[in-house]
């Protein structure tokens, strides 16, 4: 087990900067998820930690040791790839034992460790099969099995579930969670799926354009997003953003409103705003309630409804032609064209400065 620490890590391909100075400290035994849209540099960051790519600048430490110049095999890591990367010409047993074979382990040791991995991943019956005879989930299990037999100090997962169908993804997600509790090893997991991030992580690192947007526990990021990008990225359906006018400022709150929103007071959370300026109000769809009167009334017309049984998602058009999504946690029936008035708890709303998503 080991800590992983990145200090001022930069990576460029020619003139293109992919990672623009990243500082992250991952504690021993922690499960950290790198999440972000495609092209944000999350996979590159993982490959840099693995040693599959060199860095342009900065320091990478694993277990207190600078590993910048070390080969992947010298870093004490194991990696699970998106495509599983299991060797098609070897049986499951040979695949799992590959690292041990390379390391020159004895036959007895290999058998014992393969058996242990197979037991943990419940695939004893698959050991003599070839990868072509396995399903996607089973292949992923083999890849994980290969990773755990060497007892690495850090596990790296590169979008391991993105090739699986939805049902299997949930099973494997739970399995990875279970594995993590069982092994207690430091794990770094890359995904673009926020559900995986929210459910698996101790801490989430949200990345955008090669920069860290926010690091924190899942609920911390959900409830206290550092900026508009993080607020919009986590949560489904994603947060609504309304352009509002700042009508008044007093201490820790601002009074904001617009054509469709009656003036309300929202905490500024130490962000700076200008009186008579513009701001962006963020409201999660789940925090909107249908009501005739109350604080923060929004007036809209139903454009489209999605009934999911346990939840009803309504797409509204506001008076100023902006779209708004509301999610009600019960089965409700709305017809397109219905007028709908909504209210929300202003304590759960977020106010962001208009320009630049990076401002905090």
């Amino acid at each position, binding site marked *: 087990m080991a800590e992983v620490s990145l200090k001022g890590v930069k990576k460029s391909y020619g003139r293109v900067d992919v990672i623009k100075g990243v500082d992250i400290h991952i504690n021993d035994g922690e499960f950290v998820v790198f999440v972000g849209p495609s092209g944000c540099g999350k996979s590159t960051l993982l490959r840099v930690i*693995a040693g599959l790519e060199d860095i342009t600048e900065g320091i990478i430490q694993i277990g207190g040791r600078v590993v910048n110049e070390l080969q992947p*095999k010298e870093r004490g890591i*194991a*990696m699970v*790839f998106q495509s599983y990367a*299991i*060797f098609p010409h070897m049986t499951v047993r040979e695949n799992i034992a590959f*690292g041990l074979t390379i390391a020159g382990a004895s036959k007895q040791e290999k058998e014992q460790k393969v058996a242990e991995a197979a037991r943990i991943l419940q695939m004893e019956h698959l050991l003599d099969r070839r990868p072509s005879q396995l399903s996607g989930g089973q292949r992923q299990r083999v*890849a994980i099995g290969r990773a755990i037999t*060497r007892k690495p100090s850090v596990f790296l997962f590169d979008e391991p579930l993105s090739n699986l169908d939805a049902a299997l993804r949930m099973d494997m997600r739970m399995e990875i969670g279970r594995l993590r509790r069982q092994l207690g090893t430091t794990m770094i997991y890359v995904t673009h799926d926020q559900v995986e991030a929210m459910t698996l992580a101790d801490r989430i690192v949200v990345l955008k354009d090669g920069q860290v947007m926010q690091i924190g526990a899942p609920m911390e990021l959900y409830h206290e997003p550092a900026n508009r990008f993080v607020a919009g990225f986590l949560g489904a359906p994603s947060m609504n953003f309304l352009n509002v006018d700042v009508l008044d400022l007093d201490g820790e709150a601002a009074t904001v409103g617009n054509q469709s929103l009656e003036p309300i007071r929202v905490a500024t959370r130490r962000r700076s705003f200008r009186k008579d300026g513009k701001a962006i109000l963020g409201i999660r769809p789940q925090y909107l309630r249908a009501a005739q009167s109350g604080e923060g009334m929004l007036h809209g017309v139903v454009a489209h409804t999605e009934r999911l049984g346990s939840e009803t998602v309504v797409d509204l058009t506001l008076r100023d032609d902006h779209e708004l999504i509301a999610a009600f946690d019960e089965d409700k029936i709305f017809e397109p064209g219905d007028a709908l008035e909504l209210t929300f708890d202003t304590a759960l709303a977020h106010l962001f400065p208009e320009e630049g998503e990076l401002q905090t």
Partner: protein
Amino acid sequence: MAFNPDNYGLRLFVRYLVLCLIALIFIFPLVFMINSSFKPDSQLLADTSSLRAFLPVGDISLNNYFGAFRRAPVGLFVLNSVLVTGATVLLSLLICSMAAFSFAFLRWKGRDVVLSIVIATLIIPFETIAIPLLLLVSKLPWIGLDGLHWGWLNTYRVQIIPWIADGLTIFLFVQYFKGLPGELIEASRVEGASWWQVYYRVVMPLSGPVLATAAILKFLVMYNQYLWPLIVVQQENYRPVMVGLGYFFQLNVAWGEVMAYLTLITVPVLIFYLFLQRAFIASIASTGVKG
């Protein structure tokens, strides 16, 4: 369009008819050669004006074969060719695949330039380098069991070593290696494999089709060698089959014996081809390379 079984059957018939005709065109020379090898010269020449040329009829015997063996050391020539070809094919697969591995997976300065030069050698005809190469090999040193020698002429090695590395084989391997999933290579690196281990534990076991293609193409080139052995080998001991054909074109040409000799030297090619046929067709289909 509705499915019409009659139409389908007819189309299938026409397709097979065309395929059979094409197959016949390719097979005719072989059939002619084999049949003629059993006929005396007088009958052989008389038959060429009719379809009898392709049929085993008339005065059939093995006399031409006995004649061929009397005229030339056929066994020795075949053995020489098989030795030279076998050694070159094996060494070529090893050396060229290692070179291609370096081009495909390792990062080093000037790699792409060197690869372009290697590929560019494909356009240089052998005839243009034959004489410079002859001068070179005639002066090269060799350390054998009996000490240091100068000059490689009249040996097996002069027929083998210059043919081991070639642009086409390297190019075939590079293309195939680049098509292998990169994550397999990375996974083996993460698992602790050295580049050498990646080569022989992961890449080579997955390279069956390209090994077969490269082996067959190299086999054909080597087995058909004529010009090079003609100029570097003056002693009968090291002569390959194609040069041996010259023994049959002396003052009076015995066509029956020529055909018997040709039939005999075709046998190793057919055996080799049948052995690798399935892999060869599969890889030709996948790489789009024509032999």
